[in-house]
């Protein structure tokens, strides 16, 4: 199904482009929102990501749906990182500053699912921590790759990840997730 969609998109079929967009837009919006906290910026990143995907879909070779999603996700992440670099919104936080950062969660009445809570807390991380945490934990990049992407050293990437984990765990304990994290470990 997705293969036919990709083939039609490669021929420039607008209907197929819309269907592919509908299939992945919400998932990719969440990806974008994990990197750029602001919704307007996330929309901008998503839009430029989709445009780049439709322009370069001729070079994409379909193998399976997971491959297609990974390809689209990589495009959106690259766009997000480019956006962060362009806006100079990627300062790497020092240890002293971390203590002052407090999560600003939205009201919990509708947030019944753990996944939504985790997503929200990740968004609350400082940009430097959040970017390294997302790239390493969620996307599976290595510290070397992160260093190349963010133009930082591997050690800086490692330290940023460590600090991000510490901060996130602190917040999770505050919100009653300590038992949950220990249970999974």
């Amino acid at each position: 199904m997705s293969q036919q969609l990709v083939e039609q998109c490669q021929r420039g079929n607008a209907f197929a482009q819309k269907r592919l967009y509908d299939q992945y837009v919400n998932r990719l919006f969440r990806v974008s929102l994990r990197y750029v906290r602001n919704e307007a910026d996330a929309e901008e990143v998503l839009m430029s990501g989709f445009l780049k995907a439709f322009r370069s879909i001729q070079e994409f070779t379909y193998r399976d749906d997971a491959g297609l999603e990974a390809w689209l996700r990589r495009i959106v992440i690259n766009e997000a990182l480019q956006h962060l670099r362009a806006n100079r919104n990627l300062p790497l936080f020092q240890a002293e500053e971390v203590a002052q950062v407090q999560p600003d969660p939205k009201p919990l009445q509708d947030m019944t699912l753990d996944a939504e809570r985790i997503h929200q807390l990740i968004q609350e991380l400082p940009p430097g921590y959040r970017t390294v945490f997302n790239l390493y934990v969620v996307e599976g990049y290595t510290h070397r790759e992160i260093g190349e992407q963010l133009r930082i050293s591997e050690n800086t990437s490692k330290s940023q990840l460590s600090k991000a984990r510490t901060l996130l765990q602190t917040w999770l304990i505050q919100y009653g997730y300590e038992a949950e994290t220990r249970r999974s470990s």
Partner: protein
Amino acid sequence: MKQKPDEALDQWVRQSLSRLPDTPPPGSSFDSERLWQQMRPELQVEQPRRRARWIGWAAAAVVAGLVTLWGSMHRPDTRPVSATTVKNEQATTHSTIPLKADEQLVKSVSESEKEERNVPKIASKRVKAETVTPRQQVDGHSEVTVAVDFPESESDASRERGIRTPSTLESTLLGLDTKTPVAQHIPKQTKAKPRFKVVHENELKAEEEARPKLYQTGNFVRLGTGQLHETEQPERQPALVIPLTNKPNQ
């Protein structure tokens, strides 16, 4: 093997995020349709650009093809000049030979034939040596009757090149213009064959004389002795004169 606590946290986070519903986050004002409407004009611009690229390539190919075709059609003819072309050139050259109108006619057919044999040589010499005046070269030539056919397709081109048409040839033969260099009037390539031969007038006369006559006047036999005294005719009646030649102007 015991998992490290950091890895446990990472795994738990990954599992939690994978359970996220395929919808925008709660409380988000994200509208995918609005974003698509914003994207659509930019996507539609891409397609004509791609089409325009194809059209551009096709147009370039067509132009290249036309240029090649034109080049092959208008390539200068490097083939050796055929004998027919040489003959035509000679005939044209011969037609523009300046002649004196008051020169004596050549009487014998052999002389005219000799001239015809010599004309191509003279013409070819003139083409090569332009400094020699035509009058000097045609010394001893007699007046000739020339009928040259110019192909219609080449008439305009001939006019541009300065080639004399039959009307101008007449004036040339009357001695009005005898100083124009012959080489200017020689077309570079004349492919059409002349319809008529260039024949000297004396040659035509000789042919007529050589033609067998329908009646013979030299072998009459007189029968009888005839009268001794011929009666004198009181008045001489005008005799009916029948010209021996059938030409109206003689």
